[in-house]
């Protein structure tokens, strides 16, 4: 019997296979290369500006030297904390309804569908919505409006992970608790939540990661502020919009600060992503 190599048809198939698999390797390298290039640019442009001043001083006026991003960083932390503080409980409760009380109801499948749409809805649309629903009635840009816009983005993320994680909790756990006479709400809070804790935290972390880099919904809800302000009813400085304004300006000092801010924000978001993933996978392996 002749070896299959001698068959020209087989050789052709092997060549096609080799070519296709080579292209798959190439695609992977292509994908990873972007990550390396973007992170490389961030580090090389942002690292020189990293210093204690960045955290200690406020954003400088144009055409000056020095300064930092303290007000923007604090503002961003505040907006994110309030946004998640409003959005996460609503998302948790909604996800709880879908997985526990209304698991087989029609309402749940409708909500799941709508939630998935909201999950991928363009964030600038959320900004427009909050502008119309909060900024115009309140008569001006405000920190509250920005935090609400972030909350609207947080809700679908948390709803999705909460429902998924609670569905993973085995039913015998709930049945055992019910058999001991525990009312439904306590079964959920004391048993189901506890069993799904890591997953629920993962969802909230992912939501924090998602909103901390959001720029578009803040552009016309909080605007930005050159100065230190903790007043939620007025404009508040925040990192994404500060980066957006500084990077579009010819002032080299502003540009340097923008790159440092970009480095900070990216690494914060990526660490949150990785932390959420590690937490999520340690749960799944159990």
């Amino acid at each position, binding site marked *: 019997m002749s070896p299959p190599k001698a068959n020209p048809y087989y050789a052709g*198939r092997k060549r*096609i*296979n080799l070519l*296709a*698999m080579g292209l*798959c*390797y*190439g*695609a*992977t390298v292509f*994908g*990873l290369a972007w*990550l390396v290039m973007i992170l490389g640019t*961030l580090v090389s442009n942002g690292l020189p500006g990293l210093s204690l001043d960045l955290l200690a001083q406020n954003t400088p006026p144009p055409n000056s030297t020095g300064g930092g991003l303290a007000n923007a960083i604090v503002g961003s932390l505040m907006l994110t904390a309030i946004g998640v503080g409003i959005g996460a*409980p*609503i998302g*948790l*409760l*909604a996800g709880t*309804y*879908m997985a526990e*009380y*209304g698991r087989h109801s029609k*309402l749940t499948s409708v*909500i799941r569908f*709508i939630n998935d*749409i*909201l999950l*991928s*809805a*363009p*964030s*600038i*649309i959320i900004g*427009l*919505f909050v*502008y*119309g*629903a909060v900024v115009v009635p309140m008569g001006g840009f405000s920190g509250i409006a920005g935090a609400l816009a972030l909350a*609207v983005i947080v*809700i*679908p993320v948390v709803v999705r992970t909460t429902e998924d994680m609670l569905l993973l909790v085995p039913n015998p756990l709930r049945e055992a608790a019910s058999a001991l006479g525990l*009312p*439904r*709400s*306590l079964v959920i809070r004391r048993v189901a939540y506890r069993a799904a804790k890591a997953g629920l935290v993962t969802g909230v972390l992912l939501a924090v990661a998602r909103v901390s*880099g*959001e720029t*578009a919904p803040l552009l*016309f809800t909080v*605007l930005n502020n050159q100065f230190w302000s903790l007043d939620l009813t007025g404009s508040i400085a925040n990192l994404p919009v500060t*980066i*957006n304004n500084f*990077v579009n300006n010819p002032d080299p000092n502003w540009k340097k600060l*923008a790159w440092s801010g*970009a480095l900070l924000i990216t690494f914060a*978001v*990526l660490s949150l*992503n*990785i932390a959420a993933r590690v937490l999520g996978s340690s749960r799944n392996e159990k």
Partner: protein
Amino acid sequence: MSSSEIANTATVDKNGSLARARVLRSMRWGDVLFESLTRTAAISVLVLLGGIIISLFIGAWPAIKTYGFDFLTTQRWAPSLKPQPVLGALGPIYGTLVSSLLAMVIAVPVGLGISIFLTELCPHALRRPISIAIELLAGIPSIIYGMWGFFVLGPFLAEHFQPAVIDFFADVPVLNVIFAGPASNLSLFNAALILAIMVLPFITAISRDVFATVPVVLKEAAYGAGCTTWEVVWNVVIPYTRVGVIGGVMLGLGRALGETMAVAFVIGNAFKIKASLFAPATTISAAIASEFAESDGLHQSSLILLGLLLFVLTFMVLTAARLMLMRLERNQGK
């Protein structure tokens, strides 16, 4: 037992059952309260969607009343024209559709290639790190893509890539119009490329997950019949997962259509439609991001109308994506 002792136990019993009844009643109230709380939260998700649509519609109403259907067919965008601005959405709609479709043309083959690599070729130890690295691309904030596209990618493409392509197609009819000069730092093509990188992780993640649903026996049977890896992928894996892959692609498309900051940085904000992909253009989201803060009156209303159009567009694409993914799940008997 004396009679007083009996009376004592009776009171204890009575008190105990009373206390238990009280606790049970409060628990029942707690139950009702918690359930209605969760149901309210769940319904608020629906209210949110309704609120978004109503709020956009109210904001867009003056523009709808003034321009009607002409808004969709007019290319001119002159917000400061007196006495009344002339505003048409054709440019942003064209830019949105072309940049997103071009992004998919780039991202789909690459995303599928990466998924094939991850499921068929990659050594087990590297599988997780590489998947995570690709997924991290989705974690990088949009504005960072914009900055990087503006300062690094744009100048590089304008200097090295675009002139070469323009020269290469200079004598080919049709293509010499699509790839016409001059090279530009800001262009529709750059926006599409950045969008492609941004949606790549979504397409990769979903197609990798649906590839993993192919029963191993099916693949083994094909390998047993003498198929090469590529033939197994092309004839078994992809046909089996087609609906899911298309769902993932639509999901990516939904993302690309609404992407804002990255595009606003690199597309050049030109409302006039040019045939060349290397010319500046604009998208709906980029137009809103760059003009909304300084707009008022009819101009602002028109920008909100653009937002409404974008929402309807992404809504349709995402609905189609979800329906396809749901069909796949049903077929699996989940």
